[in-house]
């Protein structure tokens, strides 16, 4: 009987990362911007997507992959806006994984401008899984409270942008908006922060411009 030690140095999520890299490559070849939306349940991801669908109708082509534990509800809301949507029900898993996206991918039209992936509502686990996106957005709604970034740091650490949503509620809630921005930027100084209301449309324009710029950058040959 012999013993030996093997140095492996392999990422524990290596199989996820490989599929994510394939998805990212295919999206870039087709000049599609992949956007991963992460937040707690109820922060307004689907409502934001409905507004984006209305604003881009007729000028841009988009599709949405919806992640939920159960039900087809979110995909139905998106389809009602005339946007193709695929619902992934995880049956209990608290996050989407790249192979789930990989399975749906062959059905996605290849002539899109944007592919939005709405992750399972959860501010913790989704952050650990690369889905092949080029842009990762974390949403934090004002009713969730202003103490969240440092309580759930990983979501903010791995994001490219922070969307502080439901800004229409600012006048009625005690909320330290500047404090939230400061905390989030402490964790990730490279975050781009937007404050918006998907209900009223306030603050939506700067975020749409950001999406267009990100798409141009992701489609550039050296991206």
């Amino acid at each position, binding site marked *: *009987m*012999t*013993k*030996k*030690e*093997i*140095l*492996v*140095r*392999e*990422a*524990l*999520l*290596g*199989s*996820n990362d490989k599929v994510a890299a394939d998805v990212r490559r295919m999206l870039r070849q087709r000049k599609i911007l992949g956007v991963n939306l992460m937040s707690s349940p109820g922060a307004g991801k689907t409502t934001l997507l409905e507004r984006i669908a209305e604003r881009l109708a007729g000028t841009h082509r988009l599709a949405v992959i919806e992640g939920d534990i159960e039900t087809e509800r979110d995909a139905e809301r998106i389809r009602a806006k005339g946007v193709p949507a695929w619902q992934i029900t995880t049956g209990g*898993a*608290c*996050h989407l*994984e790249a192979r789930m996206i990989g399975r749906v991918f062959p059905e996605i039209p290849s002539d899109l401008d944007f592919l939005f992936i709405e992750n399972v509502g959860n501010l*913790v*686990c989704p*952050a*650990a*899984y690369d889905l092949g996106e080029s842009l990762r957005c974390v949403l934090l709604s004002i009713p969730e409270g202003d103490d969240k970034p*440092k309580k759930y*740091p*990983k979501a903010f*650490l*791995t994001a490219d942008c922070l969307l502080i949503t439901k800004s229409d509620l600012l006048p009625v809630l005690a909320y330290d908006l500047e404090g939230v921005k400061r905390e989030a*930027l*402490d*964790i*990730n*100084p490279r975050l781009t922060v937007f404050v918006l209301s998907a209900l009223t449309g306030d603050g939506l324009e700067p975020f749409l411009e950001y999406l267009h710029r990100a798409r141009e950058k992701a489609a550039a040959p050296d991206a």
Partner: protein
Amino acid sequence: MHELSIITSLFETLESQARDHGAARITAVELKVGPLSGVVPELLQEAFDMFKLGTVADGAALTIVQPPVRVRCRSCGAETEPQGLVFKCGECGSTDLSLAAGTDLYLEKVELETD
């Protein structure tokens, strides 16, 4: 709470390591888990102990190494450990940083036994 899904993926790697090296069993596993990996070491340990029964790593000891968070400054080049959750350079205070360590989630090494 995605530790079980991580452990499932770990055991796929362990099985293939044992196969590739013609090993009868795996006796020790070392993981590297950074504080910003989003994974709780205790839960990983529990999931490992549950999952290993009846596998090639049944009876394997799990060691979890936790390297500290380190940031590299793009302005002055220093590599420092941030204090708390405030990411700025410990030398010059710049916030133009890249993460050098802390999100690690690696299978570092395995100890194999052949009959």
